[in-house]
């Protein structure tokens, strides 16, 4: 069981809670959601506690992440999009912290749960739809009718636009979920090779070096992926929010 690469995604109850026939137990996934939020919020809070004009190292990191997302949102959705900054920054910090916490051995990676990434993607798309209709009324539907298209092509283009809009939450959630899932499985499989080859005696130990190197290299790659996927999630969120702020913009 210890070598089963799927085992790490198993959810287990810590505090069983049941309300109205539904299982709302506090699970290991819940625990790491709490941990992610606590780490992200705690870091941002304590790193900036000095509020110094010349930042310390940790305050500098907090400021850099803030400005990183602020610039991304300003470029992606313009200055009108800045009202969504707390949302985008929360999403980025939450996903990034969850991904990075998942890199610790025996820690649960909550972003490897499709339900989590899908819920976050729906939150983004839901925000786009609600804000788009609230701000522009039916004008928001111009999103599906790009300007400067010959009349004959309009039905085709509208159909494509609608399909691409509907596939956004799926692609947004599956991208993050699949990356984290596949990365952790690969890591576990190669690490499993090290253990099983090592059990075969002297020759096996020699042969285990190769998967060991691979595991170390993959760990580095997974840290990159952890950051990259949080970045991609935030960038796409900014692009989608741009549609809500400027529906006729493309």
């Amino acid at each position, binding site marked *: 069981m210890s070598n089963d690469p799927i085992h790490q995604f198993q959810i287990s109850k810590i505090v069983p809670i049941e309300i109205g026939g539904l299982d709302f137990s506090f699970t290991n996934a819940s625990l790491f959601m709490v941990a992610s939020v606590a780490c992200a919020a705690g870091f941002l809070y304590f790193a900036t506690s000095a509020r110094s004009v010349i930042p310390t190292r940790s305050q500098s990191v907090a400021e850099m992440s803030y*400005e990183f997302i602020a610039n991304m949102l300003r470029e992606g959705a313009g200055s009108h999009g800045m009202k969504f900054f707390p949302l985008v920054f929360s999403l980025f910090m939450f996903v990034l912290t969850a991904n990075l916490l998942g890199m610790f051995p025996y820690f649960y990676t909550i972003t490897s749960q499709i339900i989590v990434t899908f819920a976050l993607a729906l939150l983004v798309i839901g925000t786009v739809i609600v804000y788009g209709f609230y701000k522009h009324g039916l004008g928001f539907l111009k999103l599906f009718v790009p300007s400067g298209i010959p009349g004959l092509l309009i039905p085709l283009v509208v159909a494509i636009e609608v399909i691409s809009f509907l596939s956004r939450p799926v692609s947004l959630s599956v991208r993050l979920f699949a990356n984290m*899932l596949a990365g952790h499985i690969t890591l576990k499989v190669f690490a499993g090779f090290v253990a099983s080859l090592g059990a075969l005696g002297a020759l096996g130990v020699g042969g285990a070096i190769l998967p060991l190197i691979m595991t170390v290299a993959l760990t580095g790659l997974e840290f990159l992926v952890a950051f990259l996927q949080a970045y991609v999630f935030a960038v796409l969120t900014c692009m989608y929010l741009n549609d809500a702020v400027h529906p006729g913009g493309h």
Partner: protein
Amino acid sequence: MFVTSAYAQTAPAATDTHAAPAGETHTETGAAHGGEHAGAFPPFDPTYYPSTLLWLVITFGLFYIVMKNVLVPRVGGILETRRERISQDLDEASRMKAEADAAVETYEKELAAARSKGHQIAASAREAAKAKAASDRAAIEAELAAKLAAAEARIAETKTKAFAEVGQIAEDTASAIVDQLIGGKATGDDIKAAVAAAKTEA
């Protein structure tokens, strides 16, 4: 259609909008993995979807509230303060530079004024000194001329007096000589005439 027993339990109460489409995603892909393990493939196993969703809503909601009300204003405030501070410092620096430039200008103006004033003072002092020297020289020359004149006058006086005395001495000497030579008394008038004659000859 492909409702597993676990999904059947959660489906009636999955009123949350997120749960329904997620459940469908599960059934499509989850079926392929379902046979390999005792349970479903964990990420597609809907048993814990309600719990995961609930805790996600709680934790992320809390995170968003804290972010919006505490952390974003906090970090944004620090950055804003720094931006203000930098622009303030730049303003201060440019103000000081302007002040320094003005001070340099004033200094140079004053330096030029002082220099020209110095020149003026030197020129007037030179003029005054020259004038004083000239007047002193004139005074001294006049004094010297006066002294020279007085001296000449005195010399002339002494000379005439001496000449006059020379006549008397000559007369006395002549009468004495005459006395010695002839033993007689030469009359004063003769002698006087002879001396006068000699004097005119000399």
